């Protein structure tokens, strides 16, 4: 389990993380959502031990993330393609594997498994510079799971990825969950979070604005469903908190219904309701 208590981090005058507290149970996919500059990457950096915090605490299974034991449990997929472009996929994996205490005999086995996991076994000896964006993203994931970590932090792993590679990454994330791993996933794409995450936290201006399952957030912050009924009497619009009841009532008063459309609130609605519609540059 990851426990975050009253976390604070400042960069000069910018208060990047304000008093964040949360718990992420083991074996879950946790989505950390927020606009640009909200504090997602800073929070991830503190949780992985990449940077320290000004106050508060983070523990992974009770361990300080900067301790050696905790580091063996952490797999980080940074936002950028953190690979050596001029080396082959195998050379990259071999180097990163050498930083962990993996027995030499097992390194080849682990590399084969990781490459197979992300679907790159046939490109093992090719230089990363020859890979497409999607392949690089997948290899980025492979390099982070070689040492079989319990906690996998994915910082916007699908940025600039084609639909096929994105789909493969979704499969990988779900597979990691099946393997009992805890995945902490940051993204801009709400449909990704809605599809993958067991629990979601929405963060803005360094503050955790909402925390819960997707359904909990929808019911708390999504608002009513927008319903449109097109009939002989014309088009009727209304908002409903209980669609089944309100729709039956509305249909009773309508003759010859041509079309019914419903705009149910989704995570994006929740996100925009919480963070506003102002552009973030």
């Amino acid at each position: 389990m990851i426990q975050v208590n009253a976390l604070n981090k400042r960069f000069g005058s910018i208060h990047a993380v304000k008093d964040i507290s949360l718990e992420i149970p083991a074996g879950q996919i946790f989505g950390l959502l927020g606009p640009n500059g909200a504090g997602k990457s800073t929070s991830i950096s503190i949780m992985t031990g990449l940077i320290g915090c000004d106050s508060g605490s983070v523990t992974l299974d009770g361990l300080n993330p900067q301790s050696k034991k905790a580091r063996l449990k952490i797999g980080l997929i940074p936002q950028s393609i953190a690979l050596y472009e001029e080396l082959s996929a195998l050379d990259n994996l071999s180097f990163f594997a050498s930083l962990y205490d993996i027995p030499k005999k097992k390194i080849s086995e682990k590399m084969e498994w990781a490459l197979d996991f992300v679907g790159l076994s046939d490109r093992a000896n090719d230089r990363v510079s020859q890979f497409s964006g999607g392949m690089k993203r997948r290899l980025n994931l492979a390099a982070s799971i070689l040492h079989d970590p319990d906690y996998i932090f994915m910082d916007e792993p699908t940025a600039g990825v084609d639909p096929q590679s994105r789909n493969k990454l979704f499969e990988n994330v779900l597979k990691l969950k099946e393997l009992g791993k805890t995945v902490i996933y940051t993204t801009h794409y709400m449909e990704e979070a809605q599809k993958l995450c067991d629990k979601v936290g929405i963060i803005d201006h360094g503050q955790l604005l909402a925390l819960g399952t997707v359904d909990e957030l929808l019911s708390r912050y999504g608002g009513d469903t927008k319903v449109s009924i097109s009939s002989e009497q014309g088009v009727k619009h209304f908002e409903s908190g209980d669609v089944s009841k309100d729709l039956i009532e509305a249909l009773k008063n309508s003759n010859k219904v041509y079309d019914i459309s419903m705009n149910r609130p989704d995570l994006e609605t929740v996100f925009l309701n919480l963070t506003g519609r102002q552009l973030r540059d």
Partner: protein
Amino acid sequence: MNKILALMKKDFKLLFRDKMAVFFTFVFPLVFAFIFGSIFSGDGGGSKALKVAVVDLDQTEQSKAFVEQISEADEFTVTLSTEEKAKDLVRRGKRVAYFILPKGFGEDYKGVFAGSPPEVLVGIDPSRKAEAGYLEGSLMKLGINRFEQAFSDPTAMTEQLDASIAQIQDNDDIPEEWKSLLNDYLPKMKELTAQEIGSGEGFGFGGEEGAENPMMPLKVTKQEEVVKRSGPQNAFAITIPQGVIWAIMGCVIGFAISIVQEKTLGTMSRLIVAPISRTQIVAGKALGCFVAQIAVVTLLFVVAYFILGVRFNLPKLMLAAVASGICFVGLMMFFASLAKTERSVAGITNAFLLMMGMVGGAMIPLFVMPGWMQAISNFSPVKWAIVAFEGAIWRDFSYGEMMTPVLILIAIGVVAFILGTRMVKLEQA
């Protein structure tokens, strides 16, 4: 340690995958040393005349005439000198050899048929065998002129015959039957010479072998004059340390950029999150840079030794290489701490090292710099690295003398490394 070695191995792989980096680290310094060495060594078709010092101890008409012949010969560039000064010039490598015309040279020069051939003492370093052979041959060629003079000038020939007849009379070493033969032959020869005056055909010349054969053009006696190796053996001895500096600068720039690149790529995040300490990360980079420098110094000096004929003191060279390695690893770490992007670290490192290289002797040899520039060069680590390498090659430094540049280099390196490791932010900005 395995993790540090893994970091170093990875950096080497990256270095060798980058063709431009390989060129500027390993090939360019060699090209630099070779081209400038060739220019300075004058192999481009310049004068081949050997610089010699000539001492005329005889001061006779014949010796003066012979000195004049040497001076006019294309093979030599002559400096007239005293015996002591001539020997000193050769010992210091300022002249290839000295010629001494001893007392009695003129007397022997006159005697074609009797006495000893005129002696020339040639002082030359025993290692310069090729030049020694060339000098002897050139002197012999000039010595033959005395026969040409004798046989083509009837008046001189008559004088030679008179002198020879007189020498035969006074010389007890000549067997009686030879004396009798020559006493019979030389007056007849004198008679014949008188008849041949004006014919212009001369008498021809044929010598016999033997050290004391008067018919030899000259008696060349070689003296060993060991050169004190206080100057560069050749131009490459100067340009190789300069080439080494260029190679080291290439390593420094490459590794400083690689540290910043790890941050911008995000690979540094992976390193920090891995169970590897910050010290190990820094040590991996430092060791990579140090080993790259040692590798390039080794390569350049192997080429210098086997191809360019540069000789050096190996232990002192190793001392210089290690000290400069420490110095430039420290500077590499310092430069990496100053910048956030590859472009800025390349700019800062290039600007600093080029400036230090210019004033430190990486472009113009230190000893040809004006005094004020040599004073400024004391502030350049490049200068001390060059001095250390030159100390091992041709400055003939003792270990005590080597300590000055070596300690300065290590001090610069340690200070820069401490500052660099304290200031460098491994975390991504």
